[in-house]
């Protein structure tokens, strides 16, 4: 019992640390990628190649003056960024970060909690994330904040539907809601039998999920909640110091988690081709798989940034049109076709 607690505690703490580390360095990567895509070199003053930039930014956020508007609802004003941060971190719990590690004859899974309703949990947590933004915007008692918050929540709620529908097609195929089992099903080249990544079977579903993930994370081209010309800073107009930092940080954690979810659902998670033919020991394959999983995540984080500097943002009516009139019907059609093909080929 004690060893179980220690194992879970260590795993949870290290994943918490890794999540924060990756999110911090995403801010650095964002600036570097942005610079490189625009033929600049980006931050390079803090340490070699500017690698201490996140520390400097964090320090700046903490040292800045904290300002809470008098007219705001103080409790909710503080609760907003807390909820945003907490829900962003909570989703990391059910992601299978790797296979199992054999140690002293015991098998330790590199997943904090293997819920059999893993995907539903992700969606639940993501839905709560809307509250962080909505409460923050409303509690500021500022029209810009409120409008930005309404925009953000309307957008996130709209795209959650298409996201959920695109996942249903995947669930029909995999017959499970558990992220661990979905990852295992995509294990490559086991026993002479090929298991392709889900993206091969669900290209349309993947595309819809990807687009919705962009919208859920409030990333370009769906970054309408922030808009200097119309809304000042959007829902975080009144926020300053580390509370603003939490909101911005939560966005990067969301990006990291959604990259992890995309990799798990559609790109084989911690599996890689020929993993069983290499003849390596169980633990080596697990560690290698985890590294490859992080490689996939890194690629998707880069993809998020890459898109940001490629596509201009949507207008709000275009955003709603895309969500309601295109993505939702498309995902429903996708469900029908998937079901039809399964009936034809599996029977």
């Amino acid at each position, binding site marked *: 019992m004690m060893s179980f607690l220690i194992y879970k505690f260590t795993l949870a703490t290290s994943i918490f640390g890794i999540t924060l580390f990756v999110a911090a360095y995403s801010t650095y990567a964002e600036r570097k*990628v942005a610079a*490189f*895509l*625009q*033929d*600049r*070199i980006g931050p*390079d003053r803090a340490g070699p190649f500017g690698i201490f930039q996140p520390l400097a930014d964090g320090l700046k956020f903490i040292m800045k003056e904290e300002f809470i508007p008098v007219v705001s609802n103080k409790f909710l004003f503080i609760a907003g960024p807390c909820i945003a941060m907490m829900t962003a971190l909570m989703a990391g719990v059910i992601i299978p970060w790797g296979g199992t590690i054999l140690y002293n004859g015991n098998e330790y899974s590199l997943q904090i909690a293997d819920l059999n309703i893993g995907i539903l949990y992700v969606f639940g947590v993501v839905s709560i994330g809307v509250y962080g933004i909505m409460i923050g915007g409303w509690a500021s008692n500022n029209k810009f904040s409120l409008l930005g918050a309404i925009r953000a929540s309307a957008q996130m709620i709209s795209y959650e539907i298409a996201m959920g529908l695109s996942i249903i097609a995947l669930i029909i195929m995999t017959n499970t809601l558990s992220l661990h089992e979905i990852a295992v099903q995509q294990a490559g080249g086991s026993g002479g039998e090929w298991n392709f990544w889900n993206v091969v079977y669900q290209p349309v579903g993947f*595309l819809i999920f990807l687009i919705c993930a962009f919208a859920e994370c409030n990333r370009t081209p769906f970054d309408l909640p922030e808009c200097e010309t119309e809304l000042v800073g959007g829902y975080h107009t009144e926020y300053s110091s580390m509370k603003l930092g939490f909101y911005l940080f939560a966005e990067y954690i969301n990006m990291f988690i959604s990259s992890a979810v995309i990799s798990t659902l559609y790109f084989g998670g911690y599996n890689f081709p020929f993993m069983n033919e290499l003849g390596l020991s169980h633990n080596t394959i697990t560690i290698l798989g985890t590294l490859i999983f992080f490689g996939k995540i890194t690629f998707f984080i880069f993809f998020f940034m*890459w*898109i940001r*500097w*490629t*596509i201009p943002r949507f207008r709000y009516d275009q955003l709603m049109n895309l969500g309601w009139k295109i993505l939702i019907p498309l995902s429903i059609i996708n469900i029908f076709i998937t079901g039809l093909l399964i009936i034809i080929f599996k029977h």
Partner: protein
Amino acid sequence: MSLMERMYLPAILGGIVITIKHLFKRKATVRYPETKRSISDIWRGLHVLKRDDKGAERCTACGLCAVVCPAEAITMESAERKKGEENLYREEKYAATYEINMLRCIFCGLCEEACPKEAIFLTDRILPTDFTRNSFIFGKDKLVEPVDERVDVTKRQTAAVLEFKEHKRLSHNK
């Protein structure tokens, strides 16, 4: 638009190919304090008040530079050279104070052209930045070149520039 065009995906794909190409392009940034941008041979930078070979100031406070200055950035006060100051000032009259307001100066170089004593020159040095307005009013302490640290102004005096000055002097003598 055709269905393919209305999907926008091929266009987006084309877009991300263009942006990824920029990732590997040569960067346009110049890391300023470490590497400096190359400047033209006749770059007009920070002024210098030259001394002659013996170390005496050349300026005679005639005021031509102040008259010609379109930005009215130059002010000066003249004084008469006393006995025993021959090693300090070349002419019998010299500038007791000489100030250029660097925030007004437009670096046109007319002062250099107007100077009959070849005392003021624009150099290839860059005006340093500062925080207060007063610190941009450069007096003689900053403008006159130190005796042991002469400022080289020959680089700017190309053949074309010298010839231009020559003609002007001749036309002035007519």
